[in-house]
């Protein structure tokens, strides 16, 4: 039942390493990795805990603005410090939003994550002096990494790839850990999990906080990719896109998030060049996948390898 099987992870490492040789567009690939982090953070909640978060952009935005402001206003910030600050801000925001949202039951908790996202968007929009409002926050510098310049797009891709792989590996470990097992017990039957002695609320809020930290890192990587923090990092469209990527890839495996993010990023790039109404095609694809492959695109892998033990059921509701 081990998801941290080295095999699958090594395949991922290899794919990430050779991707720029196949797709000669490192900015797009970097964006795919960043979306991969966001989708993986979302799937940790939906796939493992069974909690649908409709406000993941809140923590992406917190990370992006935290790192952005730091890099705009403070000279010589090491890149890892920028990522760490972003992770802490994402985690802190998620701790508050998670603790308050989980007060609500069922669909109310989902709606609360959405409401907090709207609140975060409104704040980012109103605090123009800080965030630049709808003009965005400009002048975000991209620091070097232990003396290596990341100014080139390929160099930055490989830096983000390393961050992505480290974070994703940590998530795989978490999913297999005692903590991850409790999350799945809560997903299956929260009252029974409480009856056997688990403080389910603490587990849920902790998972939410970790998801926020990962989303914060993604936000920071995004800010440094474009040297700019657009207001979109925190808007509801971004939250929706994260949901789409998560469900497109499938919540039955953590790798599903990456598949979903890759398909979403590459396809929306291609389609947007072909046709102005491309989101329509994306929507049709999304519906088709969700209706025919309830476990998302990653389900295909499971069907091809029937011996693979299913760690969890595909999404049944929502």
């Amino acid at each position, binding site marked *: *039942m*081990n998801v*941290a099987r080295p095999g699958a992870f090594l395949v991922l490492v290899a794919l990430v390493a050779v991707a720029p040789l196949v797709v000669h567009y490192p900015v797009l690939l970097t964006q795919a990795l960043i979306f991969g982090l966001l989708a993986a953070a979302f799937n940790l909640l939906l796939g493992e805990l069974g909690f649908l978060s409709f406000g993941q952009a809140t923590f992406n935005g917190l990370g992006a603005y935290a790192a952005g402001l730091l890099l705009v206003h403070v000279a010589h910030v090491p890149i890892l410090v920028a990522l760490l600050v972003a992770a802490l801000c994402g985690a802190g925001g998620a701790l508050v939003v998670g603790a308050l949202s989980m007060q609500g039951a069922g669909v109310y908790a989902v709606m609360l994550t959405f409401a907090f996202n709207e609140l975060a968007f409104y704040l980012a929009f109103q605090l123009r002096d800080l965030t630049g409002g709808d003009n965005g926050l400009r002048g975000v510098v991209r620091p070097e990494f232990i003396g290596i310049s990341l100014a080139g797009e390929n160099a930055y891709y490989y830096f983000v790839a390393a961050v992505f792989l480290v974070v994703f590996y*940590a998530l795989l*470990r*978490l999913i*297999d*850990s*005692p*903590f*991850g*097992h*409790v999350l*799945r*017990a809560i997903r*299956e*039957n929260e*009252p*029974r*999990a*409480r*009856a*056997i*002695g*688990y*403080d389910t609320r603490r*587990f849920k809020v*902790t998972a939410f906080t970790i998801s926020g930290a990962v989303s914060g890192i993604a936000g920071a990587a995004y800010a440094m990719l474009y040297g700019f923090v657009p207001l979109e990092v925190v808007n509801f469209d971004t939250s929706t896109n994260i949901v789409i990527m998560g469900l497109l890839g499938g919540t039955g495996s953590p790798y599903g998030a990456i598949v979903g993010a890759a398909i979403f990023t590459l396809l929306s790039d291609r389609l947007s060049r072909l046709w102005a109404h491309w989101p329509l095609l994306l929507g049709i694809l999304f519906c088709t996948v969700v209706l025919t492959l309830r476990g998302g695109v990653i389900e295909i892998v499971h069907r091809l390898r029937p011996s693979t*033990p299913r760690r*969890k*059921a595909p999404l049944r509701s929502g």
Partner: protein
Amino acid sequence: MTPVGMLRTEKLCKSFGGTVAVDSVDLNVRAASLHAIIGPNGAGKTTLFNLLAGEMRPTSGGVFFEDREITRLDVRERSHLGIGRSFQRTNIFRALSAYENVRVAAQSRTQASFAMWEPATRLRDVAARAQAILDDAGLAALAVRTAGELAGGDQRLLEIAIALATAPKLLLLDEPSQGLSGEDALRLMARIRTLAERYTIVLIEHNMNLVMELSDEITVMNFGSILARGTPAEIRADPQVREAYLGSRG
């Protein structure tokens, strides 16, 4: 006077709006005994269990466990004190394997549940305990099967196995044979016989033969309150009980 029990209640009451589901119940469960609670449908037996396990707060009255008042403790805290409970309606982790159902329950007794780096498989004691409980329940061959896909009888055994995995001092079993018949019912009764030798048990059960055979003490409930209590022989001889309950069941 009966000796002070492992579990006691004092004038325990629970109302839902107008319905008084549990009405001034004084219960005394001695350690190492099997205490059966019987009574017709709607008598308040499950509600009493909910009050004992901490799933619900009483309207008034108190619950005492090992001479400590636990009325205000929630279900999680009572689980850690050693009160384990199985449910009348099968209440398992359906999409997880039978093994994982029991394993995650056993894991709740460790300090390791917030560990996020080492795989859960490293918790060797937990794995061994889970395996032993499955073996004991006769579910070893079904360990890797998805719990929700098990047959009814196996699910009922798993339901109890989850409670056992939390290493309870007191086991509350709510109609463990509910919904079973024939072979399955017999298997479950054999299981309860085995457990009766090892645990202090409060058992809600409609099967009178089993109750009369295993109980040290029986409490009969009707309309939320205690109608009678005593040894199986006393209960069998009680005319009130015969009229209200036993009579209707032959």
